[in-house]
């Protein structure tokens, strides 16, 4: 079953809080992982793995470089 945008955003907030220590409230769709949230390439892998566990959608490494904002990830999971 597809997840709503709100569900995915809330889930990503929890994941990013746990992995990168960024408060979930700061995780909003327009935020850039690198520029706004200071998340590096290895943390992006951890976020992708945790998102796969939570939402059942695999995000391969070769896709990660194209997922620049939180919205990009939401769209990828909903796709």
């Amino acid at each position, binding site marked *: 079953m597809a997840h709503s945008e709100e569900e995915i955003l809330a889930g990503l907030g929890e994941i990013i809080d746990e992995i990168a220590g960024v408060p979930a409230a700061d995780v909003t769709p327009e935020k850039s992982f690198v520029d706004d949230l200071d998340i590096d390439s*290895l943390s992006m892998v951890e976020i992708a793995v945790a998102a796969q566990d939570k939402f059942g959608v695999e995000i391969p490494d070769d896709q*990660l470089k194209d997922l620049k904002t939180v919205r990009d990830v939401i769209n990828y999971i909903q796709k």
Partner: protein
Amino acid sequence: MNLSAPAPGARVVAFGEYQPGNVVSNDDLTARVDTSDEWIRSRVGVEERRIAGADETVVSMAVAAGGKALAAGGLSPDEIDLVIVATCTQTDQIPHAASSVASHLGINAPGAFDLNAACAGFCYALAVASDAVRIGSAQNVLVVGSEKLSEWVDWDDRSTCVIFADGAGAAVVTAADEPGIGPVVWGSSGERADKIHLRENRYLFQEGQTVFRWTTTELYPVALEALERAGVAATELTAFVPHQANLRIVEAIARRLGAPQALVARDIVTAGNTSSASIPLAISRMSERGELPSGSTVLTLGFGAGLTYAAQVLRIP
């Protein structure tokens, strides 16, 4: 046909290590490549590493570490009948390192060979040594991991030169009534061999995100299986000593073992990533600091290019 007489078990009786004297700090590297102490610490976990000089080779570092292990174990060179050197950075393929190492140590006419399973090499070599002793092919084995990675690093590539370093670690394996080396769990994933390779046949290259995902998601079950096969509970471990690839990988795997009491090796912080040398180097240094009492139980996990991996449980001599 007669067969060799088997031994009930094998154990490590001593460890030894060697590190080059030349300490290279993160600040030293910022003079050469566009990086920073903060970036290196947060991405890789290294604060300083040892880099060999021109007169320090895979063979000479193995001799130093092996000699220290022999002395610590109270064995004379003529008691050793098999020498295995785990290395992937020996520049000359012919001659290989092990027989030269044996000769320099005064070990007379042992079986001698090199073993290349990249950063998993020490765990592979220890398993082979244990089996040789148990089956009776050898009585006392010197196992050394020795690497001069600095010769295979592009010192203008900031993604790799901050990680890799040089050094050697050794173990002496002998027959024992009470086993001190558990069953090895090993394997490989050759379909991903291109993920860590020599660029231009010269410089170490790895796909960082892919290697990070592999190591942090697929290897902890290998470590847990080694515990299960040895009959040791995770809660009984004194320490977890994985290959010192990257501090974030080390800590990510450790979190998934269910062994919160276990000391986790963080030798990479001051030794860098020394490939097949990293596990015996870490154990030897931790033992010298009194962190691994005699009889304590340690879980090793080697992993690296190939891709290869291996894990086993050890008792500290």
